[in-house]
């Protein structure tokens, strides 16, 4: 029961994190009206995943490895692109707000940008959605797994949803400045993790060799342990990354973090010297 719980928790956490942050963000910038669209995007992604999973199982049984890994890699990169755009948009919006203004700030959030945020939610869910559905179908149709295994899976998924909900509620409560900074930093780690993940997926698809290990932290915190796999689900933590994965991770993380933090909104400086 526990391994299945951990697996489903891990699969669900990253999507839950993004859905929670996007939803809280929309509320904080006065666009609560866009929340139903986020819900629609979420449900659409779940629906497509289930439908696609059923179709795959009913026809070919499974997707060929190259197809599966390439699709996952591309979806991860698409998420990175939208996340990066969202990060810098948040940063720009933050700079436009001087001081501690929270309510009554008219932010020009066009329908196009709302669509992009909904698109991010859609990609985040569908990314692991198909694989999760195929896993659940295998779980349900296997004779060697009992009700406790399936229960573990359901609980894991429910916990991930709960975490997303907690992030939403907490994000709405905290002040705007803290929210922007905290979620920005977290999302940079998430995006860096997705870059490393896409490299791993394309390597498995055979696009390039990807076997040289950079370091081995399995003795410290293996990403297959409970805590390690939660960190893996949230920010893409790998205890034994390859050189290419590590390089990709750092190539994204370092410049983006620098750009984000260096021009962090609400920086306290003398008004005359404000940028």
């Amino acid at each position, binding site marked *: 029961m526990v391994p299945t719980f951990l697996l489903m928790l891990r699969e669900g956490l990253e999507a839950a994190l993004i859905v929670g942050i996007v939803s809280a963000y929309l509320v904080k910038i006065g666009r609560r009206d866009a929340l139903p669209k986020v819900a629609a995007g979420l449900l659409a992604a779940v629906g497509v995943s289930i439908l696609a999973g059923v179709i795959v199982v009913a026809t070919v049984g499974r997707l060929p490895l190259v197809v599966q890994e390439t699709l996952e890699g591309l979806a991860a990169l698409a998420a990175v692109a939208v996340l990066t755009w969202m990060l810098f948009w948040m940063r720009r919006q933050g700079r436009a707000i001087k001081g501690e203004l929270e309510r009554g700030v008219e932010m020009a959030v066009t329908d196009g940008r709302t669509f992009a945020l909904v698109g991010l939610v859609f990609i985040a869910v569908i990314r692991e959605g198909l694989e999760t559905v195929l896993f659940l179908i295998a779980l349900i149709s296997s004779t060697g797994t009992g009700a406790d295994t399936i229960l573990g899976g359901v609980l894991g998924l429910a916990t991930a949803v709960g975490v997303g909900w907690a992030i939403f509620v907490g994000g709405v409560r905290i002040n705007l400045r803290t929210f922007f900074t905290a979620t920005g930093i977290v999302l940079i780690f998430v995006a860096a993790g997705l870059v490393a993940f896409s490299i791993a997926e394309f390597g498995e698809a*055979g696009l390039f060799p990807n076997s040289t290990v950079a370091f081995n932290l399995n003795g410290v915190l293996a990403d297959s342990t409970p805590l390690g796999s939660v960190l893996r689900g949230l920010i893409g933590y790998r205890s034994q990354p390859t050189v290419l994965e590590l390089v990709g991770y750092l190539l994204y993380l370092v410049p983006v973090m620098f750009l984000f933090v260096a021009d962090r909104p609400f920086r306290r400086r003398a008004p005359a010297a404000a940028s």
Partner: protein
Amino acid sequence: MLSRRVLALGFAGLISFAIAACGSTGSTGSPGTAVTDGAIGSRSPSTVAVEVNDGAFTPSTITVPAGSVTFSVKNVGSIEHEFEIFKGDQVVDEVEGLVPGLARDLTVTLEPGQYTYECKLSGHEESGTLTVTD
């Protein structure tokens, strides 16, 4: 308008999955799995039962004739495992998400050669040798 866009996105996603699934039937494109005409296609596919426990695959050595092989992998251990077929350092095919008690089939077409099968989860060392004969 937005909900129509979301719907369009959903259909696009669905169609691309379906096309990918149908368009790739019978081919994997991975190294070591090209199917040649004639003798290989006319053999009946082999099936191998594999168990993975915490620390080892049973059996740890497998020999099969080239062609279509179905590995029926069952996790009899206490934690999650995987079954990945490697030719050298390149993964050929795999089945993941093997939670305790779960059995999943992996059907793959293999050329003659030496392979290994491993669980590549961090810190796991389960591995075996796979020989595919002519």
